[in-house]
């Protein structure tokens, strides 16, 4: 558990970081909180020759409101999310989810940018970002572009990031006032990735689900948006039959790996339960 040697760079601007990434090529990797990258380096599963530390770029940090959108700089830590009144007020599900990531030590260092850019299906933020309809801002040698979270994930550790690109911020429309939300995560212990998790954001109108979106974590090689499951509950009062339909629709798109968290069948089964529980809890807090 000893990493190989590497060179360390600390640019002061996104432009400089991009320049370094372009010049140093494939052997260079951005370093954010290091809580996914450094463990991989210690196992020598990642052996970057150059680390481009993004901590020197102040523009990448911070939470702001841009009209109806919440904009979060890539280098904002999970702890910053938890401390933010803006997040607690406009996107409580983000607060709830951040609190379920690892432990305070990890959250003090780990960033939202690193979490969503990493491409690990075990990370909690990607499915949540898809559920919230987020877009990621990417800056690279070819300029700036925005990619929808829903289009970003291509496979385990494969994303839409092109060589030389840095993810600079995420933004999402603030959920409607009175919405209900819940993130249900089954894990074995603090510090564990989800056995299965479900994010739900919905609105209710006269006792029935008006809008709904559902995201799924760690039940496939990428995070998932469970569109059919969401459709199955719209217009219903979340009666037992509709919940069952939603859980089945969600389970149908899951393809988790068997691991120490359990066999495939179990992970799909509890994935469905997480969906059911998240729907019920979200509805119970919706106004």
């Amino acid at each position: 558990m000893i990493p190989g040697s590497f060179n360390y760079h600390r640019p002061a601007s996104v432009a400089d970081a991009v320049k370094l990434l372009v010049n140093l090529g494939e052997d260079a990797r951005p370093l954010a909180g290091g809580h996914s990258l450094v463990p991989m380096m210690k196992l020598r599963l990642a052996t970057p020759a150059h680390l481009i530390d993004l901590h020197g770029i102040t523009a990448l940090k911070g939470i702001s409101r841009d009209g109806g959108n919440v904009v979060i700089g890539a280098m904002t830590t999970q702890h910053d999310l938890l401390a933010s009144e803006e997040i607690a007020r406009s996107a409580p599900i983000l607060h709830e989810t951040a609190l379920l990531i690892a432990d305070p030590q990890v959250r003090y260092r780990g960033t939202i940018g690193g979490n969503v850019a990493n491409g690990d299906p075990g990370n909690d933020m990607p499915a949540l970002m898809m559920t919230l309809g987020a877009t990621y801002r990417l800056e690279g040698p070819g300029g700036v572009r925005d990619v929808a979270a829903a289009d970003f994930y291509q496979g385990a550790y494969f994303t839409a990031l092109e060589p030389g690109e840095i993810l600079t911020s995420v933004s999402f429309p603030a959920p409607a006032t009175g919405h209900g939300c819940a993130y249900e995560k089954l894990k074995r212990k603090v510090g564990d990735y989800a056995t299965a998790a479900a994010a739900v954001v919905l609105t209710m109108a006269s006792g029935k689900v008006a809008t709904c979106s559902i995201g799924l974590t760690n039940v496939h090689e990428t995070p998932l948006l469970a569109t059919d499951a969401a459709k199955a509950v719209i217009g219903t009062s979340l009666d037992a039959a509709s919940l069952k339909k939603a859980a089945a629709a969600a389970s149908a798109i899951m393809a988790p790996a068997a691991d120490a968290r359990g066999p495939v069948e179990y992970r799909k089964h509890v994935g469905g339960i997480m969906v059911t529980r998240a729907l019920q809890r979200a509805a119970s807090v919706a106004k």
Partner: protein
Amino acid sequence: MNDLTPTREQRTAALEGMGCKRKRVEDIRFTQGRGNYVDDVKLPGMLHGDFVRSPHPHARVKKIDDSEALKVPGVLAVITAETLKTVNLAWMPTLAGDVQMVLADGKVLFQNQEVAFVVATDRYEADDGINKVIVEYEALPPLVDPFKAMDADAPVLREDLVGKTIGAHGPRKHNNHIFEWTVGDKEMTDAAFKKADVTIKEMISYHRTHPSPLETCQCVCSFDKIKGELTIYGTFQAPHVIRTVVALIAKIPEHKIHVIAPDIGGGFGNKVGAYPGYICAAVASIVTGKPVKWVEDRIENLTATSFARDYHMTTEVAATKDGKVTGLRVHVLADHGAFDACADPSKWPAGFFNIVTGSYDFPTAHLAVDGVYTNKAPGGVAYRCSFRVTEAAYCIERAMDILAQKLNMDPAELRLKNFIKAEQFPYHSALGWEYDSGDYHTAMRKMMETTGYAALRKEQAEKRAAFKRGETRDIMGLGISFFTEIVGAGPSKNCDILGIAMFDSCEIRMHPTGAGIARVGSKSQGQGHETTWAQIIATEIGIPADNIMVEEGNTDTAPYGLGTYGSRSTPVAGAAIAMAARKIKAKAQMIAAYKLEVHEDDLEFDIDGFRVRGLPEKFMSMKDICWAAYNSVPPGMEPGLEAVSYYDPPNMTYPFGAYLCVMDIDVDTGVYKVRRFYALDDCGTRINPMIIEGQVHGGLTEAFAIAMGQEIRYDEVGNVVTGSFMDFFMPTAVETPHWETDFTVTPSPHHPIGAKGVGESPNVGGVPAFSNAVNDAFSFLGSTHIQMPHDFWRNWKAAKDLGAVA
């Protein structure tokens, strides 16, 4: 006497002796980052070594090419079995009478086995070097399932043993067979089964797990060529044993070996044995002439240094129809991995597993244990338990629950019916032990009353009915464990390690001003010996505990001791401390008599000094006696006040306890919640109640981890898949239940202060309580036994197999 004269209570309290919740003195440095651990040892010119390890569970090593590694800047040497052969150290003896490869000699027998040792000027370079050593392997079929180890067509693992039909513990039936160990009366037991109204039979497995202390195994070896002396700083639970082992295998005179165990960050049995890292670091130091440090990382610790358990126990109980047990028959298949590196006393290949009759009055019993080799890491050590006692306690406590279920009897009632009675002690068990003391009925009834056991059973019955009506998806389980341990190894009549009797020792030296130092043969790894040993002395000789410094771990200064494991420190070293203190006291009495001008017999000891009987104002404090010992001893007496004691215990001690776990399980997800856990421990005389409570909390947390998920697991082709704390369940404070502790006190009749030891009770007793709770929860759905560990998905699977989830 005036008002300022301290009362007897004040004088006793000032000593902070036995029974006092004295704060741990070692914590002053531990909590301020001022401990001194092996990794803190930095010697001038020190080099670092690290291992190339095998990716294969079973393979022939065709070639090791170190040429590229030696080109890595900073890499100074690559040591292989060939290097070690030049000093006759390619293999080393194990404590269990087997031999073990230090570095792969022609073959590898488990994944992550040590293949080559790379020595470099720093740890990073050593690891860079590792990645450049090219090893050519030819894969061989792995043997993973211990039940197939003795099949006719099983792969041959140990080529060094081919043709050897006699092992260290008798005949071998197969080349993958290590030993067969039998105890008890087979005929009588078979007869009891023939006559029995009721019998049960179940294969009860205790899975492979690992002690995983916070600090991994490590050492710094420094060989001084001029003096011919070897100094080893290491994480050793038994430093003197290590010194003797090194003397025997490295042929260095024992007085030229200095073993120092500094502060240790937890051991739990992991740090008893000798590992390849120690030998390689020592050889590397001899080869390079520089000190060499070896520090194991977490993956190495979990996958290569000793595991624990891995016992598969086919258990049968015979009983009358009204629930009186009449016989016990157990066959154990013990998976030892590639080498038998068990850390048991020499003549005990399955440790003290013959305590398996537990707390019950079995008229007859028979036990057979077969040890086998597989392509897994070698072991197994006693993970916070006296040798194989936790396996035995799990076996019998699970079996009693299964029998209760078959008899349709409450498991508490069944236990009460079969307990050894208080008046039966000292009790001779069917499998050969003499239990020193106990009062099981009192402890059990106290547990039942305090927890409201009857009400809990009623609640459970209501919950079960509600579950059957479909009103809840939670099931409730009550897990009882009533364990009897056997600790304090041990009497020279039945215990030795490498031929050395398992005594322990203490040397006390009192200084003129009434302070002193006690050096002890035990070695704390966090148990708080510096605190509790001083408390024993304080009470025995009347000097405040704060004035006694306790030192352990340096073989040059500490008297020879067998170290700390198997809850032996209090039963054995604790006794040596009391005996040494009594020698001090005896000499002090003579000095006091001389100074007070009375006959010795006219004196009585009174808390912190001697008083003349009938003349209360004639008193000499121990403090003053210490001073007198250095200037005015009676004519003919040597000056000074010191004593040494080597204590060979007459018997083991038998702590016991009554535990109850109340658990709720959600059948849909398998998620459990420990609603309540009550632990009553009887460890005889209690030296420091606060430390006991801490020990119980720690041991219960380990028991919780083991029962509910902590497992070293191999896949079907021999890859170890639980190599980090992501998958090897290490609970945090969040998962850990709340612990309620309680006690009764039944002193050991043969121990000088009546103490029995407590360090391991909670691990031993805790595991069956958790497992019985899970099994009890599911029993009404028709199951008799569900194997550990009871993690979420396995609970769900149990529910599914029983038809409780779709």
